[in-house]
């Protein structure tokens, strides 16, 4: 058991290093020179001076070093939690940009992902139980999963914000709001949170419902279900087993979803001008603000890895098959 955990940890460590290395490589693979962007903003008139300042910045961004040194220093500063400085928002450090954006994104993603998972699975289980529901509920499920995040966002923005003007078009809170731990501000946040949340929640929910429905139907037709039935076990018991076994793959799905939903969050935040990570990535990508891209992707990588690891553990606990399999050395 412990051996298994250690091995997993090792694997994850390796994955992390590999991913981070690729992440680091990105800016260095890019054409164009970030420092020139900065120079463009300082507008130095005297060419000689410009050259001089240029050299300074190249040094302060370590861009004048050989690659292996840059890589080395990248890890060094990483260990010190230093993710570098934004070019576009010079001199703001990348870490502060992330820190400002993270709460908004998590505030959207965590509820949207977990609630959609929970509700979706519930609905799916219901649908698998009753044919009526299966034919009424599921079609919506298909439509929802098939909807591009941004389009649902556009649609809702168009209806609720632009046409009926019942909800704000964007931002995280009203421009005139005074921030603080007050109900007024809390409600204000919620009002701005509803549409982005819904557009994420609905799309994901449909997917989970369909997945669960199909899984349960499979389980209901499996050998153990038939055996129970041929021993006269009531439908209830069989369904109970089916539901619990069908839940397992959905747990893995959850981990994968956390990774995938970032994209959804990105476009949703763009449509609703929601100042989360997604919007920051978008800004950084379109402006090739390398160090911000690097930092945010690093953040995502870590997040996804952790999510996967947690799910591995959870899975190990809830699914005897993996647990036993791994006690016998993992090969099954």
């Amino acid at each position, binding site marked *: 058991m412990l051996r298994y955990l250690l091995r997993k940890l090792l694997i994850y460590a390796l994955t992390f290093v590999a991913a981070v290395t690729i992440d680091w490589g990105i800016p260095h693979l890019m054409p164009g020179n970030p420092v020139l962007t900065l120079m463009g903003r300082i507008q130095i008139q005297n060419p000689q001076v410009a050259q001089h300042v240029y050299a300074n910045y190249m040094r302060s961004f370590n861009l004048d070093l050989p690659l292996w040194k840059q890589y080395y220093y990248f890890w060094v500063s990483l260990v010190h939690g230093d993710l570098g400085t934004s070019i576009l928002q010079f001199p703001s450090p990348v870490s502060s940009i992330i820190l400002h954006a993270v709460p908004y994104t998590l505030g959207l993603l965590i509820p949207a992902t977990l609630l959609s998972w929970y509700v979706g699975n519930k609905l799916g289980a219901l649908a698998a139980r009753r044919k009526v529901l299966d034919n009424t509920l599921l079609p919506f499920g298909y439509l929802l999963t098939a909807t591009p995040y941004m389009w649902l966002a556009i649609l809702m923005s168009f209806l609720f914000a632009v046409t009926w003007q019942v909800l704000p078009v964007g931002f995280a809170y009203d421009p005139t709001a005074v921030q603080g731990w007050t109900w007024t501000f809390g409600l204000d946040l919620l009002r701005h949170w509803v549409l982005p949340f819904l557009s994420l929640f609905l799309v994901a929910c449909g997917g989970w419902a369909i997945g669960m429905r199909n899984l349960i139907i499979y389980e209901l037709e499996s050998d153990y279900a038939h055996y129970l039935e041929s021993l*006269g076990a009531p439908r209830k018991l069989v369904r109970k087993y089916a539901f619990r076994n069908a839940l397992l793959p959905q747990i893995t799905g959850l981990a994968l979803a956390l990774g995938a939903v970032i994209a959804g969050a990105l476009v949703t935040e763009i449509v609703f001008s929601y100042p989360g990570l997604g919007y920051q990535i978008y800004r950084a990508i379109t402006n090739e603000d390398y160090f911000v891209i690097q930092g945010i992707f690093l953040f995502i990588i870590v997040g996804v890895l952790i999510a996967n690891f947690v799910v591995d553990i959870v899975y190990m606990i809830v699914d005897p098959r993996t647990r036993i399999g791994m006690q016998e050395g993992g090969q099954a």
Partner: protein
Amino acid sequence: MSLAVDDLQVYYRTLRGDVRAVDGVTFDIADGEIMGLAGESGCGKSSLGNSLVYLTGRMKYVGGTVDLDGTKLPIWDFEAMNEHRFRHISVIPQYAMSALNPTRKIGAMTADLVGSRGVPYKHVAGEFIRRLELVGLSKDVLGMYPIELSGGMKQRAVMVVSTLLDPSLLIADEITSALDVSTQKAVAEMLVEFRDRGFVKSMVVITHDISILYQVADTILVMYAGHLVEKAPADVIIGAPSHPYTRLLISSLPEVGVRYTERRLHGIPGTPPPLLAPPEGCRFRDRCPLASAKCVKRPPFRELEPGHHVACWEVGG
């Protein structure tokens, strides 16, 4: 008289019409009798076995009656049958290897199961453990997941679970086919043991493997293409079969313990007739060395001598 089946007809619904897998079958099983049910694959023996407990989605009850200890089994009614399943008639399925919920400990699963049948687990727990030990499984098995058991162990566990409520009839479907010879022997002996200890009153053991039946069965019922061919005490079937098909069947056994399996009988040219719209009369006649004009009429399954029934015009005059 434990089981009395009278003119039972169970068909498979298919696109091209009904497949007459069980076509007018009549036989009895005495109390304490272990009846072997033999025949090539597709001869309907599994269908017959299933139809007594659990009509799957595409099996259709057409006619006939099944009486167990004098009460008529509503085999056409899935819900009504529940009452009898497990309590009076139980089954060890072909797929015993995968019959247990992989994510539930065997003890817990059994508890759920008997509990759902209105029997408090604690009433049977002791017996359960005793029987597990009887089949050579320690009580630790209760705390194990199926994956932790070998194929043979799972099979034995299923045997015990299926018979936990002392049904009067047990259907054992191909339970030995996945095992090696020695294990088969063991399993076979356990079946007998179960009967002798009265865990079950009587049994139907479905298998290709006549050699196994020789070890366990009191009587053997041979089927061919959805019809009964011959029923007689085991030694008679092995030693002195009278129906031409049975004879060929036995003679084609190279030696006891080796199976002929899927291969069609070498000795006999031709194949069994299709079971959709099968020909009238004896279904074996095309391949039968003794076939005569009479055979176009279906031969009755008549008693040659006490306990020995045969369906053939040509034998026993």
